């Protein structure tokens, strides 16, 4: 799932010889662009327009109960987890991880991503519907 290989590492200087983009590279770019939008919305709505920068418990629960906010925060959770875990995997590949060790690490990272997303969604659910 390498996003870049040593061959094309120097970015523009060798861009004409770059290999075809992998799914991981495209997914990383798409999730990154989505994150620019979602994180900006998150930071502005959750922190910058809030008096004191952080919502009280009651305000957090009321905010998360808005279906649009719930959906945006859930999408943010999925995007940020994918982008982060795939990024860690790409860094490990750059550091030379290969073979069986790479497959094991990739599986662990995938499990970690799934667990993170499930936990985050459960947290959102608990706050919105049980808070």
């Amino acid at each position, binding site marked *: 799932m390498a996003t870049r290989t040593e061959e094309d590492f120097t970015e523009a200087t060798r861009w004409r010889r770059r290999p075809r983009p992998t799914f991981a590279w495209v997914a990383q770019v798409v999730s990154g662009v989505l994150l620019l939008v979602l994180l900006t919305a998150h930071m502005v709505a959750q922190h910058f327009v809030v008096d*004191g920068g952080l919502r009280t418990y009651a305000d957090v629960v009321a905010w998360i109960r808005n279906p649009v906010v719930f959906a945006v925060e859930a999408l943010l959770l999925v995007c940020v987890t994918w982008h982060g875990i795939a990024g*860690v995997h790409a860094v490990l590949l750059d550091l030379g991880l290969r073979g069986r060790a790479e497959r094991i690490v990739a599986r662990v990272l995938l499990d970690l991503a799934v667990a993170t997303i499930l936990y985050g969604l459960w947290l959102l659910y*608990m706050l919105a519907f049980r808070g």
Partner: protein
Amino acid sequence: MMRAGLRRGDGRRLVPRWLDPHGRHLGTWAFVANRLTGLGLVVYLYLHLVILSTLLRGPEAWDGLVELFRRPVFLAFDVLLIVGLAFHGFNGLRVALVGSGLLVDRRKGLLVAAGILVGLVTLVAAVRIVG
């Protein structure tokens, strides 16, 4: 001819390509910095989830934490976080554009633009957070 870089006698690299400081351009350093800020942000993602889990313990636990996070040391950390997010976001967009073969001839301009945007976002955020 021996290629440049930190290498053993047999020509193999002593350190991974992206950690080797030899013959690097500013854009490549920015790429490496993007990787390092990304790893830092992944650590923060899990720290953030742990902190948000405090919401499950009810209003007293969360509102007490909010008071703690309004102390100057945590506000300084918030500004550092914004720097990391802005750098990773805007520089990541630059890496994605150049890595995809777009605006390759303007890569230096993109780097300057990313730097200016990071500075502006940091300034606005610092004024909002500390002010």
